[in-house]
């Protein structure tokens, strides 16, 4: 990566006096560089060409985006971007459109430019966008639809603070073309207050009363009114600070959603049935992804698909059919044991995973994996905001194995959680943590693995080494 940057900086130096190359030349150079890089086994195929293209011809993304006949969809938020983009993609594919899209690992400007460069004559563009990159990409792509999903505390070391992101999003919405459709989450007070300012907007939310919780989890953000700073009142809380909120002091209230999930029936780790009501009638979605966060992803995806004119029938068919092909909850059989992996990269995600695991009826054998690489967040203090205490209530937890580069930080989290009476094994090394968790579980049992992103990659490598999953499995 640093080699690429140094290289493009040198090109920058050469171009100091020339602002931009003709598009055909810039595109040809960028494509060739991407091919070369792949040939040389250097990687970078999903970002390098776009990075180069943006240097050689700064207006290239804007030109290519304008040429997409049915417009550009930009989707952003702390949690659920990848899954939601995939659900929208399924609906677009089902409708017969030729889609240009980026992948999870390339959600910055260069990834979007690379995707546009590599997909000839698309009908429509769908990009999941890093929260901090959204302002630039809105300027570059003049989107037809912008989807604002949520803002949770995430990797503070990377983004600075949540408040700065909210400010950035606020100016994005203020500068938005009035014709752009803004799809936003009414249940997130911070996002809703920003989204409701836009004249052409679609709000979505969840209103199934039996899903609510009584108290805000410790990690809840944004629990004060954005307008007057008084504490918000919640009629119902779904995830973190999401729910049916209102400010008793100044009267600011959750906007009435245009699209509502009115009934959500969970089917354990296998999936869920969601009944939604929309302006164009009811839609029933059978989703092969578990848990409340995925219910939000599905509602966001349906709202987005409707915004670009896809019919409810097409959407339902697409989600039911294609949903099973991917997902962050994944089951793998290891001999007679079943291993379920639930990825989380921040307190809100981790708390939802804990809730899902506690809803299981099997004896609980857990393997928690914490890494501190860039994609995980180098600051691991967030684990202290996760409500691991819930796992220790009653007699649910049968075994606990802690792994990853920061396994000892997890160990301290549990040592200090309930007074140090919990038994756990600490095994930082990936293969050792896997072996220990399997041994603790015993034949015929189930192991739930809760990793951060790169810890999940390490875990998959252990499984691949044992022939349990294919070697090459990453997106695309």
């Amino acid at each position, binding site marked *: 990566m640093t080699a690429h940057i140094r290289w493009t900086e040198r090109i920058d130096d050469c171009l100091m006096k020339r602002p931009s190359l003709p598009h055909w030349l810039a595109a040809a150079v960028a494509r060739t560089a991407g091919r070369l890089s792949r040939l040389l086994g250097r990687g970078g195929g999903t970002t390098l060409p776009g990075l180069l293209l943006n240097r050689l011809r700064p207006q290239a993304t804007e030109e290519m985006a304008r040429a997409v006949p049915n417009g550009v969809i930009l989707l952003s938020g702390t949690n659920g971007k990848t899954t939601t983009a995939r659900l929208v993609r399924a609906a677009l594919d089902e409708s017969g459109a030729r889609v240009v899209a980026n992948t999870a690992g390339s959600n910055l400007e260069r990834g979007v430019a690379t995707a546009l460069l590599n997909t000839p004559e698309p009908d429509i563009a769908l990009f999941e966008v890093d929260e901090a990159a959204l302002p630039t990409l809105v300027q570059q792509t003049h989107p037809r639809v912008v989807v604002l999903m949520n803002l949770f505390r995430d990797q503070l070391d990377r983004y600075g603070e949540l408040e700065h992101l909210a400010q950035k999003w606020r100016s994005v919405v203020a500068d938005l073309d009035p014709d752009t459709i803004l799809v936003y989450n009414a249940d997130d007070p911070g996002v809703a207050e920003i989204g409701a300012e836009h004249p052409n907007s679609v709000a979505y939310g969840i209103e199934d009363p039996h899903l609510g919780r009584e108290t805000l989890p410790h990690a809840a953000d944004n629990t004060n009114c954005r307008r007057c700073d008084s504490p918000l009142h919640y009629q119902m809380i779904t995830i973190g600070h999401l729910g049916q909120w209102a400010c008793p002091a100044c009267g600011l209230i959750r906007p009435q959603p245009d699209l509502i999930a009115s009934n959500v029936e969970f089917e354990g780790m296998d999936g869920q049935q969601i009944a939604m009501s929309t302006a164009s009638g009811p839609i029933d979605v059978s989703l092969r992804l578990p848990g409340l966060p995925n219910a939000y992803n599905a509602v966001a995806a349906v709202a987005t698909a409707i915004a670009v004119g896809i019919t409810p029938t097409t959407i339902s068919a697409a989600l039911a059919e294609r949903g099973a092909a991917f997902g962050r909850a994944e089951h793998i059989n290891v001999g007679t044991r079943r291993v379920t992996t639930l990825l989380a990269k921040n307190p809100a995600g981790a708390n939802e995973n804990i809730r899902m695991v506690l809803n299981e009826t099997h004896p609980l054998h857990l393997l928690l994996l914490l890494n*501190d690489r860039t994609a995980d967040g180098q600051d*691991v*203090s*967030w684990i*202290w905001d996760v409500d691991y205490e819930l796992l220790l209530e009653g007699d649910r937890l049968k075994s606990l194995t802690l792994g990853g580069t920061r396994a000892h930080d997890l160990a*301290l989290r549990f040592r200090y959680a309930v007074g140090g009476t919990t038994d756990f094994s600490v095994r930082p090394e990936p293969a050792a943590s896997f072996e220990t968790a399997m041994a603790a579980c015993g034949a015929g049992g189930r192991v739930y693995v809760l990793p951060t992103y790169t810890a999940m990659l390490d875990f998959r490598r252990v499984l691949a080494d044992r022939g349990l999953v294919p070697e090459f499995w990453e997106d695309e």
Partner: protein
Amino acid sequence: MSESRPTVRLGHLYPDHLNIYADRGNIAVFRRRLEWRGLALEVVETGLGDEIPADCNLYYLGGGQDRDQLLVAEDLVGKVAPLRQAADGGAVVLAVCGGYQLMGHSYVTADGKKMRGTSLLDLETAASHDRLIGDVVLSVNLDGHTNTVVGYENHAGRTRLGPGCTPFGRVDKGHGNNGQDGFEGALSGRRIGTYLHGPLLPKNPWLADILLRWALDHAGAAVELEPLDDTLEQAAHATAAARAGLKR
């Protein structure tokens, strides 16, 4: 629970607003390390509009987002007298990150707004446009012993100390108060301010026990803190130090 175990009374200031870097981890460390020795922690939480109790042995201020820190600053400055009185009488004050900045005379935001502080420590902070972020290792001397302290820093503020306090530690790895003078945090008597979170205390049990010893002394409880098995703490400490690039 009515038997009279020696008890440390902790004033946790603004737990609802200053909690961004897992500050509850520091409180848990105080609690458990007392309980494991047959002692007790009593926590008094005070928020916006509440009066600060003057009778605590230990006060804790955590870190907050800019917006919350501003709210707290406005509230705190006018009612800081009981806290100052307790600190002058030997109560321990630990202030982390945003809380550390509030201990100084003032904080100037990136757009030039000046926010008054409590002047509990002789220091001033001005925000810069770039943040100082990363793993930190310090050498800290307290009660005649030098030890390493590990943590994580993430702050836009650049803090400069006046003659009324000394640095909390010398920076072995990381940025520290301002990224220039090689020092981190501030110390004056039993008042400590630092940018280090992670949270600070779980991986630095040595520091936690010194603070508890001071607090127990202030409480008038003549008890020795028995050593605990800190194998896991030391392992996590070593991992963090190695991550900061300091092999131990």
